[in-house]
């Protein structure tokens, strides 16, 4: 086993691309180290990306926020401008684990771990976030929802890393929210979750919407029908019912000890409705 902590993404990509045997990327390590401990992964090479400058920055520009792949949940939670622009994304990321886990866990890591129940992912998908990928072939930008392809699997090619995540500049009269269901108040994995991002016109009518669901399919889902159900409305009861119905129709969940198919399907609609109302309020809409 070898440990490397390169200082540039290019170097990291080169190390990963030329690695013989199993090579893994270490960001916060809150998933990777657990998998190493259980023997689920036995890497020959660990590439720690936290010494790469770009992975440690939160950069605000006209294009939004660029959040480095090594930025912890705790740091996100202390960033006022980011919290103000994207409260749903920050709250979702801050729901991951305890304070100890927050000290290490990252949005990019949460995305690459590719769990369908990852808390930050539905919020990022709703926010229309992009992953900035660096690989042996250069750079590319990928919609966040295209990264996970199934539980524990991503579309990243050998040698590719996510260097940062871009959240777009916040549009006027827009707001986002994320909600999850767990059977207690803290320290649990989402049984179902929903992220909603809305932009309103000057009269409070929904102009644009993105709705994402977690833990109801092998990957986080972007539910376009749910967005269509509320565009052009002021989230009246009929629109909310149509939103919930579209979410339920998109669910393909599993039955397990944490929730049945029926439960997950129904709660997906309930959470999407509630998250939409919070997003609407945050966008300045009045009910």
């Amino acid at each position, binding site marked *: *086993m*070898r*440990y490397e*902590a390169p200082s540039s993404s290019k170097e990291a990509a080169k190390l990963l691309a030329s690695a013989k045997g199993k090579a893994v990327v*270490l960001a916060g*390590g*809150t998933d990777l*180290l*657990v998998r*190493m*401990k*259980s023997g689920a992964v036995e*890497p020959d090479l*660990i590439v*720690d990306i*936290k010494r790469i400058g770009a992975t440690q920055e939160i950069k605000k520009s006209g294009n939004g926020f660029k959040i480095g792949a090594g930025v*912890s949940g*705790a740091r996100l939670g202390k960033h006022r401008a980011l919290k103000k622009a994207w409260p749903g994304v920050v709250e979702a990321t801050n729901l991951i*684990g*305890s*304070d*100890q*886990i927050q*000290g*290490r866990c990252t949005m990019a890591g949460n995305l690459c771990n590719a769990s369908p129940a990852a808390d930050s992912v539905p919020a990022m998908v709703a926010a229309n976030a992009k992953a900035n990928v660096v690989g042996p072939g250069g750079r590319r930008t990928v919609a966040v929802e295209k990264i996970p392809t199934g539980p524990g699997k991503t579309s990243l090619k050998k040698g590719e890393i996510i260097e940062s995540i871009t959240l777009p500049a916040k549009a006027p009269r827009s707001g986002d929210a994320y909600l999850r269901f767990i059977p207690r108040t*803290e*320290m649990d994995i989402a049984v179902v979750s929903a992220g909603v991002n809305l932009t309103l016109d000057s009269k409070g009518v929904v102009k644009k919407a993105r709705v994402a669901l977690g833990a109801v399919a092998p990957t986080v889902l972007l539910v376009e029908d749910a967005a269509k159900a509320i565009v052009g409305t002021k989230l009246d009861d009929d629109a909310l019912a149509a939103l919930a119905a579209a979410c339920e129709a998109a669910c393909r969940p599993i039955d397990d000890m944490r929730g049945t198919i029926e439960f997950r399907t129904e709660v997906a609609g309930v959470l999407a409705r509630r998250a939409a109302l919070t997003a609407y309020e945050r966008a300045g809409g009045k009910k």
Partner: protein
Amino acid sequence: MNGVQVSTTVNGDVEEFVCHPGETLLEVLRNRLGLTGAKEGCGTGDCGACSVIVDGQLVCSCLVLGAEVEGRKVATVEGLADGNRLHPLQDKFLEHAALQCGICTPGFLVAAKALLDDNPDPTEEEIRYALAGNLCRCTGYDKIVRAVDAAAAELRKSSKKKASGRKK
């Protein structure tokens, strides 16, 4: 093995060690540096018994590689007391009988220290949320929460004294 040579600061002292690439900071602290305050409860980041502070940030040392702390500042429970004088948190844990078997205590002390460094006047709810990553299987949490609350009050009193002393 491809040993990794690491130079770091632990409780203010420079420490150098060579570790296995997959070795955790917890293993390094306990087995190479003789600092056995941090405990391994679960080894998967669920119990908080191995809590330490790295560059001001509370973390589970079982979820950090030893190799990662090159050039960082690590603070463990061993650095809490000032020589023979216990930290107010340690005093209040004793006073409030906030421990029985004691395995979880170092983790609670370090997590509570991280909380009070950030928020000197937490509400009970804030204390409970901040300690949600630390599990105790014997005392229960009430006495621990009361001890942290009392220590916070004590620390606020002494920092006020210091501040007014400076004014004179």
